[in-house]
């Protein structure tokens, strides 16, 4: 290959019959560089691609014996994509990044053992400039693809954040909210545990532990046999929270998010969804340590703050898309909504039925309960009531402590029985 990049591109280096050469460090490095940059593009686009994955990707390309663009596509896909959701981003990034067909063929040729030898001094510079060009033209469109979305979200959230700040948590002052936040993050949730089939040693356990018994027996030389016992381990059941963020609920959204953030930190398996007119999974966002960061990330993700509400649609979507993924371990479901619904009633009944059947316990937290004269009159509420296991009030900090008790399943007064309200 000559030093002139324009003539080098068209022919490529992979003519069969050329002398066989062991893969050269410097030549393999060019493709490796590209994979590294490509991985960086993916990372910028939001894929969790760590350095270890990049090393794997390079190894994979070397091992796979790649002959075509499609092979490279799937080889990198195998290593760099670990979630189905990421496929679309990867696809777009790959298409843009490896757009230059001649570049890709050339890089593959460099890796191929039957590639022609190349002038080592002239090569790096010519190749590098083209790679840089491909990079700068490749990386930016990916960011541009993302940018419009971010801007739209930002616009929504900026305006809505104002609403939240003005109205939040039913006329509490900023200082009080601060105190509430502190209280919430200190809150120790009551132990509510379910027995699982995994065993652990326990002196007063019901089951015989042969292994521990043998160890202790041998320690005594086989003379004295002391029975060791074990019992079933108890763990917290997972929690799935479905939080209504429509206009009528907007004054409570923020405090609930703080509560769910604290809960996510305390318990390992908490999954949170927000719904107004559409359903958003914010579990990852709420996992951020800093509550403000977590809430900022959440509000950036959600576009339908304080809008309308479509409970039936949201629940149907949840049932269809997420139910099988997050309801596998018998979770407690917290449905936080005022139940003011505009969707068709039949759909709502069906969605609620399915939701109720697929969880351990369905708890409806309704802020409307704080009004003393609350009666279940709205049709949506009357439809949902018979389909939940518990119906609880949550409108101030006392009630969030109440909510914790309700999750723990301790208190069962008549006020929480949904049938009492019908």
């Amino acid at each position, binding site marked *: 290959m000559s030093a002139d990049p324009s003539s080098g591109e068209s022919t490529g280096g992979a003519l069969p019959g050329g002398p066989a050469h062991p893969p050269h460090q410097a030549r393999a490095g060019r493709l490796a560089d590209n994979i590294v940059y490509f991985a960086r593009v993916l990372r910028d686009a939001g894929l*969790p691609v760590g350095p270890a994955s990049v090393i794997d990707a390079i190894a994979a390309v070397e091992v*796979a014996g790649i002959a075509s663009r499609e092979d490279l596509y799937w080889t990198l896909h195998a290593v760099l994509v670990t979630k189905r959701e990421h*496929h679309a981003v990867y696809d777009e990034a790959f298409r843009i990044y490896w757009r230059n067909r001649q570049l890709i063929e050339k890089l593959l040729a460099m890796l191929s053992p039957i590639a022609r030898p190349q002038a080592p001094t002239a090569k790096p510079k010519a190749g590098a400039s083209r790679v840089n060009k491909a990079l700068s033209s490749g990386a930016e469109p990916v960011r541009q693809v993302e940018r419009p979305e971010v801007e739209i979200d930002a616009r929504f959230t900026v305006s809505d954040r104002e609403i939240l700040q003005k109205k939040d948590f039913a006329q509490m002052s900023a200082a009080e909210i601060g105190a509430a936040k502190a209280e919430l993050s200190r809150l120790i949730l009551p132990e509510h545990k379910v027995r699982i089939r995994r065993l652990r040693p326990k002196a007063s356990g019901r089951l015989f532990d042969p292994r521990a018994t043998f160890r202790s027996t041998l320690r005594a030389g*086989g003379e004295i046999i002391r029975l060791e016992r074990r019992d079933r381990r108890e763990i917290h059941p997972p929690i799935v929270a479905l939080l209504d963020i429509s206009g009528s609920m907007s004054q409570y959204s923020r405090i609930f998010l703080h509560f769910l953030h604290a809960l996510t930190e305390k318990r390992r398996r908490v999954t949170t969804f927000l719904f107004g007119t559409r359903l958003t999974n914010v579990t990852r966002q709420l996992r951020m340590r800093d509550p403000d960061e977590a809430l900022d990330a959440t509000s950036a993700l959600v576009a339908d703050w304080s809008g309308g509400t479509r409970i039936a649609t949201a629940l149907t979507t949840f049932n269809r898309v997420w139910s099988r993924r997050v*309801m596998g*371990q018998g979770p407690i479901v917290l449905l936080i909504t005022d139940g003011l619904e505009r969707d068709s009633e039949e759909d709502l009944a069906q969605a609620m039925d399915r939701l109720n059947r697929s969880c351990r316990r369905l708890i409806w937290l309704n802020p409307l309960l704080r009004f003393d004269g609350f009666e279940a009159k709205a049709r949506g509420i009357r439809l949902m009531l018979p389909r939940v296991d518990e119906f609880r009030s949550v409108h101030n900090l006392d009630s969030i402590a109440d909510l914790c008790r309700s999750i723990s399943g301790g208190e069962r007064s008549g006020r929480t029985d949904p049938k009492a309200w019908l």
Partner: protein
Amino acid sequence: MTSTETGRRPLPRSIDETVALLEEAGYIADRSLATVLHLSLRMKRPLFLEGEAGVGKTEIAKVLSKTLRRRLVRLQCYEGLDISSAVYEWNYPAQMIEIRMAEASGGIDRAELAAGIFSERFLIKRPVLQALEPDLAGPPVFLVDELDRADEAFEAFLLEVLAEAQLTIPELGTIRAAEPPIVIITTNRTREIHDALKRRCLYHWVDYPDAERERRIVHSRLPGVAVRLSAEVVAFVQALRTMDLFKAPGVAETLDWATALTELDQMALDPTVVSDTLGVLLKYQDDIQRIQGSEARRIVEDVRQQLASA
């Protein structure tokens, strides 16, 4: 490969060879799956398969074991799966007898007895340990089925086994596989598997096949089904998958349905028989209710038109 034993079948050397290998046992894979599988075999990395139920995830391990003539070690996961049922257990009754014997013969040397009691003789090997054992035909295919059903504690344990191909038995020491097994992990995604485990594997989402590939699958699996019927069955199922159902039918359901219709002596789709046998395809009452009757009739007509025009 590294081994020179006779009878050991070499691993496929290219993606095309991998496709051919799977097809030998009647598994029609698309190129993306073959690529990932090829890589996992070459790089000796576990293959992590995720997908809806009935798309042929478990089948890959079975087919691999068959075509490569390797032993298949299967670990079916469930809640509460622990070391004693997944990895190893000591044979307590035998140990007990050993102790009694030692007592009866008198003069117990405590250290000797302890060493004797916890030796390989008294070890019951469960799937994970079996998968690490050497085999003349080459390292076995280790299928970890439905990992999402096991609890997270087990996942963490598996991490160590997968990364190092070794495990430690406190009383016995570390057991290390000379060659790592071919590991296939499947999950139905009833919960998310931790990223740390996924990172050690090659990931692939097994999707529903397209019409062409599904026809080939039906043909290769059920050679007895009439050509017209299989084409109509596949087109019908493909149409169902585009609808907004709670659970779309998988390939396994397609095969079941084709078998069922053949058993009923059908040569082509008939709307009433379709409605009567929907339970083979759809497993949720809401879905069946939606499709039964007029909707089934409409899809059958669409399918016929589509096949006639093609």
